[in-house]
């Protein structure tokens, strides 16, 4: 019974229900894979005992014949989720040693469905980054390489550990979070599927906050079907998150018919960026042709404020971060700096935060502080919120005109080398999210689907953006694209 860890959720569910395999065997296969994966640096806190315990309980439940789809499925959990009694650090030194006394709603939902937690996954510190190079645990390495070149590549970020772990078959699927593209960009960089649902679909309770008006959790999986299955288990109304939507959760998997005849797919002209690599342009054209072939009606559309999404994001997200991260003060949890004789409470705050936060987090907290400070609030923060209204209206207008989903590239390039952007201006790194960040600003669902390989053999992804609350329809369009693209490539194991 080899390579159980390479199964999809749907395959594993069917084998578990058919009693062909047990969750204990499946979990052991993943734990073994994790053991040999140190070079990827994806798993940072392993929980094998908890995993075996949960797997045994899942096997009992499956034997009783009444188990949900996620029962017995071994998962990796991004370090941003608070998990009771298990280190939850948001990949930051400022949360060194923090073990929550409570469970996030999403992990609780997954555990209630019988899922197994293998451990916590590496990420960019406080989910701020696009290359997983800002983590206190060190860089995550992409299991993909450029042909025979052994240079280490980024898995993207911020959910880089989740991406690397799923692509390397260390787990069947993983949780991710997405504030500006942090599920979709890494999914595209490693050739897996990742969906950010509509804002409010998943509870944010117990998820370490970065930018509360933008943050959403979602699944990162090997297939679109798996995303449908896992998303259903994750989402739902939560009284503990006042922005969580009190809406029924549909059976997303049942909506995967692959039939998209007559669906209107918009192709936004503003996403055709200057200097876009030819391969990305070709991939986008190929994806458009596939959807047309499948019966969709392709329509050119305009989202005129697209260009202003990144600058608006880099006001709003840091502003919210500066407020959310004010709680890390060395008083209630995590790191406190060693103080010198005579140091007062202000020195304690300042030294603790200087030691505990990495450079990128410090930079964003300070930018956020600046744009919210007296005299600049209107010029920066309020202006950005007005532009955000216009960005959302762009989408509302095209949806009102009959567009069902929008097709774009997921990223402006394939995975780049770790360290390659070390000397670049921070703004250069921010450009990674140019195609994804609009979706967070507008609160829409967006999904990245692997659609091809570039000349160097690296995966490339396409993004589909859907109408609010219509994840089921979006997943079905993504399913049709997945079927047409037929992406089955896997990284060659070197780790």
């Amino acid at each position, binding site marked *: 019974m080899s390579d159980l860890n390479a199964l999809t959720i749907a395959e594993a569910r069917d084998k578990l229900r058919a009693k062909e395999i047990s969750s204990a065997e499946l979990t052991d296969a993943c734990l073994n894979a994790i053991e040999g994966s140190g070079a990827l640096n994806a798993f940072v806190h392993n929980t094998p005992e908890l995993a075996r315990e949960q797997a045994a309980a899942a096997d009992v439940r499956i034997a009783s014949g009444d188990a949900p789809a996620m029962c017995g499925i071994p998962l990796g959990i991004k370090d941003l989720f608070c998990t009771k009694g298990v280190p939850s650090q948001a990949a930051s030194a400022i949360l060194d040693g923090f073990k929550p006394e409570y469970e996030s709603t999403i992990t609780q939902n997954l555990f209630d469905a019988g899922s197994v937690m293998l451990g916590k996954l590496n990420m960019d510190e406080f989910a701020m980054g696009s290359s997983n190079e800002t983590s206190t645990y060190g860089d995550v390495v992409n299991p993909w390489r450029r042909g025979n070149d052994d240079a280490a590549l980024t898995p993207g970020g911020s959910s880089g550990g989740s991406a690397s772990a799923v692509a390397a078959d260390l787990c069947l699927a993983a949780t991710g979070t997405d504030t500006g593209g942090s599920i979709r960009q890494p999914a595209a960089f490693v050739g897996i599927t990742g969906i950010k649902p509509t804002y409010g679909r998943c509870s944010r309770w117990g998820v370490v906050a970065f930018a509360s008006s933008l943050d959403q959790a979602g699944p990162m999986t090997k297939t679109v079907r798996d995303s449908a299955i896992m998303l259903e288990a994750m989402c739902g109304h939560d009284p503990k998150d006042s922005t969580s939507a009190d809406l029924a959760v549909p059976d997303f998997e049942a909506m995967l018919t692959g039939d998209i005849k007559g669906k209107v797919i918009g192709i936004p002209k503003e996403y055709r960026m200057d200097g876009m690599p030819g391969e990305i342009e070709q991939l986008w054209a190929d994806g458009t042709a596939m959807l047309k072939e499948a019966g969709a009606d392709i329509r050119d559309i305009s989202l005129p404020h697209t260009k*202003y999404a990144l600058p608006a994001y880099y006001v709003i997200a840091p502003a919210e971060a500066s407020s959310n991260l004010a709680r890390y003060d060395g*008083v209630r949890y995590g790191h406190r700096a060693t*103080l010198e004789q005579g140091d007062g409470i202000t*020195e304690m705050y*300042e030294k603790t935060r200087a030691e505990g936060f990495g450079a990128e987090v410090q930079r964003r907290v300070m930018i956020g502080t600046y744009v919210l400070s007296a005299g600049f609030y209107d010029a920066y923060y309020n202006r950005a919120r007005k*532009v955000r209204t216009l960005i959302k209206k762009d989408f509302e207008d095209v949806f009102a005109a009959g567009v069902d989903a929008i097709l774009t590239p997921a990223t402006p390039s394939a995975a780049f080398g770790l360290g390659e952007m070390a000397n670049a*201006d921070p703004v250069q790194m921010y450009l990674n999210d140019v195609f994804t960040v609009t979706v967070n600003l507008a609160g829409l669902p967006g999904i990245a689907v692997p659609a091809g390989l570039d000349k160097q053999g690296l995966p490339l992804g396409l993004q589909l953006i859907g109408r609010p609350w219509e994840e089921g329809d979006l997943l079905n369009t993504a399913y049709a694209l997945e079927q047409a693209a037929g992406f089955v490539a896997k990284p060659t194991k070197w780790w």
Partner: protein
Amino acid sequence: MSIDKDTAARVAKLARIRVEDADLPALAEEFNNILGFIEQLNEVDVEGVEPMTSVTPMRLKRRVDEVTDGDLQDKVLANAPDAREGFFAVPKVVQ
């Protein structure tokens, strides 16, 4: 709008992050790069546009104002770097 060394120091102070004097000029330059990028927003006509407060039109749920949990002192203090006699301990605040 250009940020100088003194402004950078003031922002660091407001953010309660210690930045060494020697690091301030580089920090100011980074701020200027990022703010330069943000300046593009000035090209947009936002006349009469409402600033967004909620991305999905929703009225925040309300609940009855009553105690729903409590008696969790041990758990609340469990992760504190310094807890004494049931309190968080910090350096002296009042002289």
